[in-house]
């Protein structure tokens, strides 16, 4: 156990260097900003910043991206409470009771409860990351190609099953993503695949163009097509008193603790764990409450629990990334991509070979969560005013920054053309009911999937069923198959549609 303590201290020495503190702050501020602004999510922002982050140190860039990711959770609850607009799917629940509290003149307290619950959850979840990542990674050191192949299959299947809309569509998008991941030079044989003699294609399509086009630019187009949703603002709340009352503390604290553990558990699961966790917490709090009638009327438990669950899940979704190199959600998948860009081979070995990256990132989460409470509570007025920045200035500026970012990455106009192509693909497919997230995951996991399958088949001399003869890969593959079979069940289909509808 002492080693974890030592590692954490080592992590803190990395995280409190001025550069890393600065980028943690930049990440938290940016995250809060995009969280407050409806329409632009952390996925879009991180995809746009991928190009800039490659010029930073590996730890520094991961610290910044992580800051954006959990900073957005804080920011989106502000918009949810004050404007009743969920900044992302996970903060839909925050609207229910948080906005009602604000309506009743307790906006400041609602914001404080949300921020403090998130802080509590963030700190506990970070301790959980520190405790559980090393043993999982140690266990995973015994993993071989078959286990990795199965885990990646599970990651892809979970993404397909839990994505919105038709499972068939999600499946095709995942396959399309894997196909796009094949473009370039085959690592094993050096064969050129689909490069058509174009030199720039031999290194493959850059993940930056794919992510930025699919999520950054196409999200702007979709926002513009949907019209301006930000105009409905009611800012007459006063921030006289931010500190919650004793009764609110007494009701909120246990709810936040329960939410933390629900979120921490769900966050580790691949697929929709993070999006589900606030809903799960809300349902549990309502069931446990002596006065369930208060829910939806401004119940403190209904705000504190889901807020904590949301943030805890965002944090613990780093465990599979750090311990196994497997992304639990699309944002984490982008961070995996960032690690690859930085020349880090994701997997359990990262803990051994680059401990400063892992522990620096974990330590920065403590610091980041503290920063976020300070950024969010006293400075709330600044963020509220941000909602007044017109889209006609915000969106063009974002597009210009994206173009410069991707151009400075390689100095190649091909990447800009790829960016345009993926923006078009993203918009058109979104319109036709195809989600881009499975495509991104397929694109990132595809090459690793191929490499591990290839190695697994070399080990077993081409016996596909050998994957089912190893206990771990057999279990993981069985779970994947079960998940797929579940989508055929009518009751599961209905649940899935309901869930997608509430999104």
């Amino acid at each position: 156990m002492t080693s974890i303590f030592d590692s954490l201290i080592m992590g803190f020495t990395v995280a409190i260097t001025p550069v890393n503190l600065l980028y943690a702050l930049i990440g938290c501020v940016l995250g809060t900003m995009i969280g407050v602004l409806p329409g632009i999510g952390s996925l879009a922002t991180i995809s746009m910043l991928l190009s800039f982050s490659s010029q930073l140190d590996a730890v520094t860039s991961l610290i910044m991206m992580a800051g954006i990711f959990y900073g957005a959770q804080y920011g989106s609850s502000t918009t949810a409470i004050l404007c009743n607009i969920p900044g992302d799917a996970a903060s839909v629940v925050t609207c229910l009771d948080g906005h009602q509290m604000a309506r009743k003149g307790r906006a400041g307290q609602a914001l404080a409860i949300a921020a403090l619950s998130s802080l509590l959850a963030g700190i506990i979840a970070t301790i959980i990351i520190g405790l559980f990542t090393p043993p999982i990674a140690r266990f995973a050191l015994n993993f071989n190609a078959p286990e990795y192949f199965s885990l990646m299959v599970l990651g892809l299947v979970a993404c397909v099953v839990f994505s919105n809309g038709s499972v068939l569509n999600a499946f095709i998008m995942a396959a399309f993503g894997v196909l796009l991941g094949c473009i370039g030079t085959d690592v094993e044989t050096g064969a050129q695949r689909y490069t058509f003699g174009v030199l720039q294609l031999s290194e493959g399509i850059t993940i930056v163009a794919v992510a930025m086009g699919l999520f950054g630019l196409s999200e702007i187009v979709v926002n513009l097509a949907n019209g301006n949703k930000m105009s409905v603002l009611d800012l007459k709340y006063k921030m006289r008193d931010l500190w919650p009352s004793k009764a609110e503390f007494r009701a909120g604290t246990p709810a936040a603790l329960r939410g933390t553990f629900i979120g921490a558990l769900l966050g580790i699961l691949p697929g929709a764990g993070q999006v589900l966790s606030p809903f799960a917490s809300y349902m549990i709090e309502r069931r446990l409450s002596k006065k369930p009638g208060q829910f939806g009327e401004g119940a403190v438990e209904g705000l504190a629990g889901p807020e904590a669950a949301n943030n805890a899940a965002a944090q613990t979704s780093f465990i599979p990334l750090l311990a196994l190199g497997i992304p639990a959600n699309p944002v984490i998948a982008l961070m995996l991509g960032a690690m690859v860009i930085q020349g880090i081979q994701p997997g359990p070995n990262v803990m051994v070979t680059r401990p400063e990256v892992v522990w620096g990132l974990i330590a920065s989460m403590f610091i980041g969560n503290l920063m976020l409470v300070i950024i969010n509570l006293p400075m709330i007025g600044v963020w509220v005013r941000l909602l007044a920045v017109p889209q006609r200035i915000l969106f063009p500026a974002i597009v210009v920054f994206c173009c410069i970012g991707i151009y400075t990455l390689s100095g190649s106009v091909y990447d800009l053309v790829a960016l345009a192509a993926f923006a078009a693909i993203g918009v058109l497919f979104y319109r036709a009911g195809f989600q881009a997230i499975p495509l991104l995951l397929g694109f990132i996991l595809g090459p690793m999937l191929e490499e591990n399958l290839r190695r697994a088949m070399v080990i077993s001399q081409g016996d596909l069923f050998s994957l089912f003869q190893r206990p771990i890969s057999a279990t993981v593959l069985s779970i994947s198959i079960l998940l797929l079979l579940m989508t055929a069940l009518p009751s599961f289909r209905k649940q899935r549609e309901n869930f997608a509808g509430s999104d």
Partner: protein
Amino acid sequence: MKLAIRNPLDVMSGSFLLIVGISALYFGKDLNFGSMARMGPGFMPRVVGVCIVVLSALVVLRGLRVTGEMPPSFQLVPFLSIVLAPVLFAILIKPAGLFITAFAVFSLVRVACTKQFSVEAFLAPFILAVVVCAIFIGLLGQPLPLFWY
């Protein structure tokens, strides 16, 4: 059951993906498939290509059998202006430099955001171009030309 196009979006997207799958198989036909024990570079493309062909055929079929709701009309201006923005950037950056490129790209995207035309239409892109040049050339020292040369 008579076949008719009941969901044009499904038929269109399915056909497009069908073409993607078929071209993946066609252009990948020279890649060595290898064997199960020694997977060649053509293994994955072929497996995925077949998957795409089969599944997108199902989507086309679905479009012919299940009626889908038509989403609101497609807005061409935001789509074109944002998709073409990186292309405009690619065309301008070498000959015209960052300042003019940033100004032009900002203006192009602005067209999609507002119909309003005032001093701001000139001032906003101008300020952004100045800021962008200051950050990327001045502060970060990126190897980008400020103006043509």
